[in-house]
């Protein structure tokens, strides 16, 4: 029996590893189950089976209301945010050719964070009222992420952009935006600072269908682009010279990938805050499961990222209840040590 299925068309080609396909199916199942459980657990416990029936439109009316109006959108936002961040990290690690890269490391998240905190402090008056609707916050965050991405790219440009310059400039800009974020928090009232910290940590508290509707197009819109970029990203791993030799315009491609990466990270951060370490860890775990070919890596990363945030949110809601801990605390607190372990183990 052959190990691969081959799909080839003019503009894309896939070698589908059977083992990888199986792994991805299992991950998808795990994602589904974790979402079911997460929907069920809460102030009022609903058994997974009842959740299923409610989702398909039958079962108790109250369960249905709770699930479709409150819990489902929240879980969906968590999943999409996690998947977007992990995908964005996987792309970035491919572009930079370094497994330590991630949107939170090179300032894309930092730019979004700064914009969001600036929004919270500049548009709030002395009695803590926002002068502008909070609905504009995601817009600001997204704009912040995009501006920083262009800044990084522009400043790293010198007869083309090398991965090393990209990441170093990114690290520098991250430090700058962190400082500016702190300045903004100091200038505003402490109430806003506290609100900003929650946002900076990453939380899906209080999300509704509105957020899902806003996020989904970005996520789904990027997927087809990725399908075309996958094999080009695979070849970029061999280095700039070889990629150019294979007839690919390295710089144009790099720019496009960076934009896709920003769009994904930006939309995730805009609605779920600066969820730490998902973009770094998601692709790492995925790589251990599927190997480093991007065809398998992308779906696996997205699923793992989604599961991570869904579970982190579940932990945040239940472990210290009635206190709600932002999901970002868990992704960072568990993700970071795990990441260090991974690196040492691969030594």
């Amino acid at each position, binding site marked *: 029996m052959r190990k691969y299925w081959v799909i080839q068309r003019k503009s894309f080609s896939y070698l589908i590893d059977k083992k990888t396909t199986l792994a991805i199916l299992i991950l998808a199942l795990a994602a589904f189950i974790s979402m079911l459980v997460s929907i069920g657990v809460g102030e009022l416990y609903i058994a997974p089976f009842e959740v299923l029936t409610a989702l398909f439109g039958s079962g108790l009316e109250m369960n249905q209301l709770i699930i479709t109006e409150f819990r489902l959108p929240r879980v969906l936002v968590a999943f999409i945010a996690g998947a977007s961040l992990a995908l964005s990290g996987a792309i970035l690690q491919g572009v930079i050719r*370094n497994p*330590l*890269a991630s949107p*939170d*490391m090179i300032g894309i998240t930092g730019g979004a964070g700064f914009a969001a905190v600036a929004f919270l402090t500049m548009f709030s008056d002395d009695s803590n009222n926002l002068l502008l609707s909070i609905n504009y916050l995601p817009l600001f965050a997204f704009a912040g992420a995009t501006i920083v991405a262009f800044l990084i790219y522009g*400043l*790293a440009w*010198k007869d083309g952009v090398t991965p*090393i*310059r990209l*990441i*170093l*400039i990114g*690290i*520098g*800009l*991250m*430090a*700058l935006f*962190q*400082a*500016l974020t*702190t*300045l903004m*928090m*100091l*200038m505003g009232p*402490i109430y806003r*600072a*506290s609100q900003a*910290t*929650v946002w*900076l*940590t990453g939380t899906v508290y209080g999300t509704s269908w509105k957020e899902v509707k806003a996020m989904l197009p970005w996520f789904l819109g990027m997927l087809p682009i990725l399908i075309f970029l996958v094999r080009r990203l695979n070849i970029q791993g061999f280095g700039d010279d070889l990629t150019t030799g294979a007839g690919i315009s390295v710089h144009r491609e790099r720019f496009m990938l960076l934009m896709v990466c920003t769009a994904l990270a930006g939309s995730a951060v805009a609605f779920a805050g600066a969820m*730490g*370490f998902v973009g*770094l860890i998601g692709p790492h775990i995925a790589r251990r499961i599927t190997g480093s070919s991007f065809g398998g890596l992308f779906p696996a990363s997205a699923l793992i990222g989604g599961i991570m945030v869904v579970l982190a949110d579940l932990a945040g809601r239940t472990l210290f209840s009635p*206190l709600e*801990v*932002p999901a*970002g*605390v868990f992704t*960072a*607190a568990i993700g*970071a040590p795990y*990441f*260090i372990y991974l*690196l*040492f183990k*691969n*030594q």
Partner: protein
Amino acid sequence: MNGILQGNKIRTAALILGVFISLIAMVLSVVLGYTDTSLSMAIEAYTAFNGSNEHLIIHLSRVPRALVGMAVGISLGIAGVLMQALTRNPIASPDIFGVNAGAGFFIVFGVTFLGITSIQQFMWIGFLGAAVASSLAYALGSAGRGGLTPVKLTLAGAVMAALFASLTQGMLVTNEKALDEVLFWLAGSVEGRKLSMLAEVMPALLIAWIVSILLSRQLNAFALGEDVAVSLGQKTVIFKFAAALMVVLLAGGSVAIAGPISFIGIVVPHFARYLVGSDHRWIVPFSALTGGIMLVLADIGARFIIMPEEAPVGVVTALLGTPFFIYIVRKGIFHR
């Protein structure tokens, strides 16, 4: 590499000039600010103290912050030189490598969970954090194929910085009171520190300054490459350990008093090298002075940019330092 100052006489003269400039900077720091004061008032405050508002401000606020700024600036400057020489990485510095963030995390942890309040405890916990973060970054940077390379080390440092920053945020999220207490400190500031705080950290810093100057000859040998250093008779393991320990003392001590102040450690050694070339016996003292002067001046600037409020000096150094950092990176330091 030769600097623009050649010859020992000129360099000595420049060093003396540097001392002079740093004294002027400190005097300016005492005199300038939101409350109008003059030089004669500052002198009177110590010769004929009359209990007026201005005199009190000079006693309790201005003089301490000038001294703290100078001490922290000197320490960060030297820490930057040591780190850049040790790792042969021109953008090495306590903040990029996560040392500041590590110390910051440990201190916030102490404040929120262990209820520590005294600067002495801050200092020890800060040292611990600096040591943990720097050894983690170093181990992480040398893990994997290819061993320790400047780029890997930088990335590992950035990962550590991100890790500690997000953990710090996690702790503050659930505790608004602690946030209020540590927010200003987290941004990096030399304002509102008492002289007694400085006095507690000073012995550690002083020792580190002196040892660093004594180590500067060894830094020259080490800069030639580890193999060369060994063949010149250097015990590189002991040397590296001693230098790393000094980094921890300098960075940890600075963070304990002033919070994480970024970019001084990166920029200053470059400036010193521009002046005196590649001889560490000169780079170390020049970096020390430049660091001190820069931080004191940045602190004066911090009083004016969002008048009548004050910006934390860490923000000012970040604003000034980032363009320079980008310049170094663009100049192409990593040939690969």
